[in-house]
């Protein structure tokens, strides 16, 4: 199959990808661009392990073809923070033990990063008492908004605590 050229801006750096058009954004990141922080848990958009930000919004990278994102601004876990300079969420996940095996963790943190922004922008969720905001990120709101990110180790208590801590401290 003829390869297709795609320009992606990932974590602030430009990347040129020449790949089979069937290549998902997730596989492009993991196996072409060596950004293996984004994880493949199901390849069906059912687990959230592959969550990345595209132009600031969270998506499942396994459900997107890389070539559909020509010119888009993509943020992966590697762009959220490094292990020398961690984001507030990364610190909070460490402190609250918001993970065990670590496989869903990059997706959880990317998802939470975008979720905090959604809440700050007043987006309601299924459990919001008022569709017109403002949103108060209590444990129930956080749990609902993070239910697209499955954790089989079931670190949900720590995940909710970690996000709650950051939400209280304001969105960074």
């Amino acid at each position, binding site marked *: 199959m003829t390869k297709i050229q795609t320009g992606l801006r990932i974590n602030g750096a430009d990347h040129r990808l020449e790949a089979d058009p069937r290549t998902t954004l997730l596989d492009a990141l993991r196996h*072409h661009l060596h950004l293996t922080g984004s994880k*493949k*848990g*199901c390849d069906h958009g059912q687990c959230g392990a592959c969550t990345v930000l595209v132009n600031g919004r969270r998506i499942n990278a396994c459900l997107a073809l890389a070539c559909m994102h020509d010119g888009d601004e993509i943020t992966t876990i590697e762009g959220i923070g490094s292990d020398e300079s961690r984001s507030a969420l990364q610190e909070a996940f460490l402190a609250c033990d918001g993970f065990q095996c*670590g496989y869903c963790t990059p997706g959880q943190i990317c998802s939470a990063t975008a979720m905090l922004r959604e809440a700050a922008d007043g987006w309601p969720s299924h459990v919001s008492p008022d569709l017109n905001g403002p949103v108060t990120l209590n444990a129930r709101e956080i*749990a609902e908004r993070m*239910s697209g990110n*499955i954790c089989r180790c079931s670190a*949900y208590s720590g995940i909710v605590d970690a996000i709650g801590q950051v939400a209280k401290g304001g969105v960074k």
Partner: protein
Amino acid sequence: MNKHLKMDERQSDVLADMAQGTVGRELARSEGPLKVSGRAVYAAESGDGTEAVGVLVRATIANGRVASIDAGDALALEGVLRVITDSRMVRRPAQGTANGAPAQDTSQVDHFGQPVALVVADTFEQARHAAHLLDIRYGVETADIDPETAREVETPEGKRLEQGAFDTAMDDAAASIDAIYTTPSQSAAPMEPHAALARWDGDRLTLHGAYQMLKYNRNELADALGIHPDNVRIVSRYVGGGFGSKLGIGPEAVAAAIAARAIGRPVRVVMSRAQVFEMTSRRSETWQRVRLAADRDGRLTAIGHDARVSNLPGEAFSEPVQIATHFLYGGASRHYETRIARLNRTCAGSMRAPGEAVGMLALENAMDELAHHLGLDPVELRLRNIPERHPENGKPFSSRGLADCLTTGADLFGWNRRNTRPGAKREGEWLVGLGMASAARSNILSEAQARVRLNTDGTATVETDMTDIGTGTYSILGQVAGEMLGLAPEDVTVELGDTAFPPGSGSGGSWGAGSVGSAVFLACQDLRAALAARLGCDPGEMTLKDGVATVSNRQTRLSDLVDEAMEATGHIEPGDTKQEMQQAAFGAHFAEVAVNSVTGETRVRRMLGVFAAGRILNLKTARSQCFGGMIFGIGAALTENLVHDPRDGHVVNRDLAEYHIPVNLDVPRLDVAFLEERDPWANPIQTKGIGELGISGAGAAVTNAIFNATGIRVRDYPVTLDKLLPGLPG
């Protein structure tokens, strides 16, 4: 230097005399910074992107033989390198600790969804496309799908036990229960799909894999390939969960190794999520009959626990559902029988707490039924039936905090606020109830080795092929070494998951911390003796703390004392204490649920687990282990059900949208409390396993709460709304 210990006798609590104060602390995971930044590398990511990619192809019959495979269309596709069928490929994963290859020769099909071929191409997209183009013809044979009608059912003598006059006790009982409970197949469903990357260097194979027990996996892989284990190295530094499904070598590893050899290039094989559901092991469905007989005061006079489980023909493993029933409660007369139906369903194997996880659903429901029948508090019923010694073999318990867990849990949870009349508490549309269950999980010590090196800069390095599958092994081994050598956590580096290191115990059976932790402890004891010799004192006269050795008033920095790196290997083996003492960890679960009287939806509102599991090495990772187990319990109680098509046994719901594991909003606030305990008979660091304790009994607390909320007793798991609706008041 080597230090070996066979656990033949009680051990003194050496760790208690150490000064560093690292063990037991609530420390963040030492490998955590890598995981939260996406830099922990899992098996599928260990290549450089130039490796070829293999995709497994599944059988679409339940029983028979592959007559032919026409790979012409597949091979004609661009980038397709090879279609591999090889008599060494394995049809299913090895069972935990098998140490040899599982059933080989994929031309023989014994369940729908088993692998029959591997398509190898330059890229994943090419291989995935080509995998759909194989024209596979079969010779179909009659299959057994349904455990009710299976032609071959075994009733092993070794799984039968009759003690006392069981039937008489049932007949004479003041109160008795005779109930049948069923649980469906379940899937471990770890977040990381099973993956392998194989690379050959001459005759030597390096396999990056997602495995729990490397020393066995290495022998299993070598056996499957027909090569010497010395030529196999397995690396699993980070494993994205296992829960039993990564205990034994799997089809992906053997196929990747064969393919890499055949094409002279590294090959990566990663299962799709659908394949994880049908090609890795499942937990067997169970049919369980529990019979309880009691006197007027609720003292058990008889316990019977019969089961029917299933597995593929020839598989030695069968779900040991009665494992906790044997020792948890007294009762002079006892009866057990297990039938094993031979089915053409995905291989059954060990999933988190094999035995207790589903066996205690039935036992603890039956205890709840008996308490209700007698008008006795369920906590009190359990307290009255804690036996002095093992009720079948008379062994004493090594340590047992069950009674304390029950009473402490009842206090912490506010159990006295429970309405004893089922269905009596209503909040709008919601019926609210409380339930509880005991927790018990056998404690096992497994042979393990670990090497500890004291470096010239005063830091230490721990090396073992033990894995950390999310359990906290990196952290706790560093804490044990730090405690013994007087080092801060950041001064101990732990290297795991590589068969180039000394063989640990592997992760499984909740035995990792006690076994490998003890091996690290022993190595450090040896190093302490060597340091003391250099200081001219007995090890007992020397205090190690913050990198400094103190003897009387003399202080010496470890970095000044160690002029050349010192190394010791610790080696622990189970011994007489295993035979002489009944060893188990115990606990109590409490749950509050609300059941919607109109829709039948159950929401777990809060849950508490109180556990006594010997010394807790790291409060943070231990608590998370228990959370994880309890949430597995919520899944088993309410949603998890791996459905087999009645025609061909195929897994109908082979994805995470249809196999319902708990998601964030399904889980309420959870609390875990540990009781202070030491177990000197278990191992020298006096721990007991906790990885599976949290699930044992957890689901029964939830379903007992449903009964308390609604008065409806559902004995067919999971308790989905369709089973509650007919009995609800609306």
